[in-house]
């Protein structure tokens, strides 16, 4: 990690700035896409963007977007509450961690998509099963990162808390949560990306509404540019949320340092 930081500083400042790098990759990506769009199965970037615009203009995408977004956000909400609570519990209390960490890592590598039919059977097709599915998919990165972050709280800080006779909740809110926050936000970013991905995947399988259902529909009527428009939208959804969380992370890092 230290070598990583040193290497980043060795780069010229303007090149190392994420904005320039992102812009460059974005342009390169669009260029490759444009070049590849001569193939009949690949819509041109312009066609996809136009289709996206049309979709929002005639309202045929917005309801599905809000549906997917609602499922993602509510699921993520549950995942955050459960992930942080269990993560702190397992991270701070060593006996619990020794019992449960293997189970957590094991479940984290179970393909979540196969859980979806079980949720469909028990919660019926609709918003509730999707929310539960997003929560199941997003909870593990949050839980694991909180757990690992909580393990690495500096002993000196705990000592200081003890010297000042901090109460249980003071220890949690003043000592542990601030130290865990960077790792937690990294987990949150991963959880968010996974949440969006799994929401759309679930909708591609069975759902009432959502971007995934539209994607399958566009595919079945061979509307290639609409298909690309929806994939682009899902991609943007994941990336924009990720960038927002990244800004939060940087702000928090600044506050804590």
């Amino acid at each position, binding site marked *: 990690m230290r070598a990583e930081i040193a290497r980043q500083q060795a780069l010229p400042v303007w090149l190392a700035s994420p904005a320039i790098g992102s812009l460059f990759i974005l342009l390169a990506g669009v260029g490759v896409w444009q070049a590849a769009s001569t193939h009949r199965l690949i819509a041109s970037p312009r066609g996809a963007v136009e289709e996206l615009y049309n979709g929002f203009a005639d309202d045929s995408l917005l309801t599905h977007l809000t549906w997917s977004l609602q499922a993602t956000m509510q699921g993520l909400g549950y995942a955050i509450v459960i992930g942080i609570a269990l993560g702190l519990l397992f991270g701070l209390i060593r006996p619990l961690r*020794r019992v449960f960490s293997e189970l957590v890592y094991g479940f984290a590598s179970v393909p979540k998509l196969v859980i979806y039919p079980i949720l469909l059977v028990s919660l019926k097709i609709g918003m509730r099963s999707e929310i539960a599915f997003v929560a199941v998919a997003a909870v593990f990165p949050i839980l694991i990162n909180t757990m690992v972050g909580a393990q690495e709280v500096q002993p000196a800080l*705990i000592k200081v808390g003890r010297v000042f006779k901090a109460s249980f909740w003071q220890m949690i809110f003043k000592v542990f949560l601030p130290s865990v926050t960077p790792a937690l936000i990294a987990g949150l970013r991963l959880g968010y990306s996974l949440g969006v991905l799994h929401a759309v995947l679930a909708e591609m399988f069975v759902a009432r509404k959502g971007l995934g259902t539209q994607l399958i529909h566009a595919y079945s009527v061979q509307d290639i540019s609409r298909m690309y428009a929806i994939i682009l939208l899902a991609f943007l959804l994941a990336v924009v949320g990720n960038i927002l969380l990244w800004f939060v992370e940087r702000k928090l890092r600044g506050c804590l340092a």
Partner: protein
Amino acid sequence: MRLFRRVGQSEVLQADAGVGAGAASAPSFARPAARPPLAGWFSNSPLLSGLAVKFVQLAFLAGVYGLLEWITWAEILKPTVMPRPHDVLQTFGESIRSEYVTDNLRVTFRRLGYSFGIAASLGLLTGVVLWRLPLLGKALEPLMASLYAVPWIFFYPLLLILLGIGDKPIILLAVVLGFVPVALNTFVGFREIRPIMLKVGRATGSSPLHTFYKIMMPSAAPYVVAGLKLGFIYTFLSVIATEFLVSADGLGYIVRFAYEFFQVREMYAYVLFIIVLAFILTWLLDRVERALRGRYQ
């Protein structure tokens, strides 16, 4: 595009720390005298021995099983929603022996083998090339990390048109997903090799093979192994997910089939089968990782 790289790497590094930190935490501050009552909860004193941990884990699983058994016995959940756990276990036992499941398991393993083989060799090769050509490495590293962010699996309908139903689209998607962590970690790992060590090797006239085993591997191996592990898990997830969505055989497919034909008990049994498989695979990977780490440290 640092943010994407962070996504990948923080995960790797933290998965790393998760394995290492449990063993290496020394309770420097655990002093029995004058402790506030709750302090014990936060200390790192080993309260449970290894055997006791296993016992508590088993007890926990047994408790969950008992709870599920009670819920279905009291008909809080109807049998069409949640079959009785012992019925599921019976079906599970039958399904392990049935040809239907073992055939599909073989199909999944075949795809897993191909895709991990390709992903790992491609990733290792790319990582080493990027390390040897630092300028290219600097240029391509963030690009590769941003490959993570693209939801490739949404393209599966197109891949079906291009490659047809069968192994090819499944393997292709799994390779795309599994190759990135291997390449990035190999790159990062080889960059950890200190140039002075290579110089020492050259000065003492060690053979290339000797240099590889004694100088390069000890620095790079922890990263490379973590990358391979992550790559394997990603290919596994991808293969099962794609099978679930599109395929006409494989473990993912039989779950979907059971769901679509309302065979609830079979569905639960197959999902349990996949969960058990995932646990066995993570356990095996952990053992391999630990063995390799032990060898090179």
